[in-house]
């Protein structure tokens, strides 16, 4: 058995803001939620969605996540759906 703390690969189904398609984004379980948001944004921002100078907010299971906790602490598991929004668009959808 590996230690529980060993970082795991967590592949996610992700959508960034008003992008047109869900994408595959793999992160590590010890990444922070803020890093997760940026990892998703990397594939979309400035590519299909105009980059905006605003903080990003991450949603999981309809809940807004604290950006400082880790993916594991947030209870995000493999194949879960993650939505990222700019902070002024952060009404729950």
């Amino acid at each position, binding site marked *: 058995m590996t230690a529980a703390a060993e970082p795991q690969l967590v592949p996610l189904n992700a959508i960034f803001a008003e992008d047109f*398609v*869900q994408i595959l984004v793999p992160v590590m379980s010890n990444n922070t939620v803020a890093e997760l948001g940026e990892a998703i944004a990397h594939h979309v921002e400035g590519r*299909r969605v105009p980059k905006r100078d605003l903080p990003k907010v991450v949603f999981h299971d309809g809940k807004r996540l604290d950006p400082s906790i880790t993916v594991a602490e947030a209870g995000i598991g493999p194949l879960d759906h993650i939505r990222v929004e700019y902070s*002024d668009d952060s009404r729950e959808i």
Partner: protein
Amino acid sequence: MTLLKREEWQHLVREVDWTLSYVDDEAVYPEWMSGTGKVPREAWAKWEEDYKVSYPEYVATQREKESSAYAVKAALQRSTAWENLSEGWKSSTKMHFGGVTLVESEAVLAELKMARFGLNGSWRNMAVFGALDEIRHAQITLFFGHEFVGKDPQYDWTQKMFHTNDWVAVSLRNLFDGMMVTSNVVDIAIQLPLTFETGFTNLQFVALSADALESGDVNFANMISSIQTDEARHAQQGGPTLEILVEHDPVRAQWVIDKAFWGSARAFAALTGPAMDYYTPVEHRKQSYREFMEEWIIDQFVRTIEDYGLKKPWFWDEFMKGLDTWHHALHMGLWYWRPTLWWKPTAAVSKDDRDWLREKYPNWEKVYGDKWDVIIDNVNRGDMELTLPETLPWLCSMCHLPCCVATLGYDNRWRVRDYPLKHNGVTYHFCTAGCRQIWWKDRDNLNHPTVIDRFLAGEIQPMDVGGILGYMGLTPDVMGDDPDYSWAADYKDRLIVPRVPVAGA
């Protein structure tokens, strides 16, 4: 006239059923092959086709069709007709050659299955003509596609596409294996001849021929509209089958039609939609994809099923809304992931194109315009790496197409929403509620890994873009790219003013 009329003797060709006694009926017509279900076995004795044909008529008529199709080919062979076609239109044909040709071959297997396991002799005979027809379609398309292999290696995918694990191949194999071969023959007759061939193939083979002719592709227009004359005949196997099924098991009849309709609608949004609304040059578009769908599917097909006493499918609202979104999003997906294609997808979002799109689809600018603007600016700036993918689009566990359906929410905003389903501890994602519901009902058959699932299971190595393209069978000479990015030129000026995003815009 000393030859007897067909009406005088054809009943004897049709009466070829007998009572088996050396082996069990159930052994010769096993339930999962023949699929009588709740329909009493003897009810199939009433099966009778409307569109009658005899063998001598068949070979005479088909020979005429073949002569005229190949004559057009011969007349154009040494002209420069192909060279003068736009790259956009050529892409419509490459998509057709790769995406359709071997489907015709699989339809041969479907017809042969009905010719063996069909529950009435007339039906089995009609399916023999169907099998011949489908050989014709595969062969004429292979022959025409092969002509261009020397000019452009992408035409090699006429024969090759379905032998690869390209995501389009996986998606279409999944759809057509179920629709054409792995179902029982009663369901096949309703899925393939009735739903697919009297509905959707008209869109690809008749409606698209209008765009082909406008685009100057006489050969292709001629080939596909000639193919559809066969479909018009053998598709008539569906009606009598449906009539009997509706009488004894209307719930099953409705479900089988609904499922086949939905799968076809998804596939055609990916293949026919972009060909009609983007690849066909704007000045040659005869009607929009939506208008063709209204002419051929919504009016004609729905009238047909209501005629049989069935209802519009349960997903009707979701499908109708999708007419304004599905194919636009799939077009953007095809373009963004263009290295995974065997054609050269033109984005076709010049100002003229967008005027046309806005006119045909009033929400187009709002849902897709802003994303194309970002892409356009990247192209004009020369930031090409930003226009190419570094990951995979999420693929729907049902239709195996990208999950890219935007819907309008209560907050009046267009968003792609998730349709998840947890089953045996695994989370599956679907593009739409329709796909999720069909998968759930057919989960034992259709539970099949998408390219994403295969990637995550480590089946695709190395786990990067190169590994994925290799897995999909793409070679550098075939990989798709935009033909010239010329549509971006209209917007060169706006780069002078940096774009300042406005909050809430």
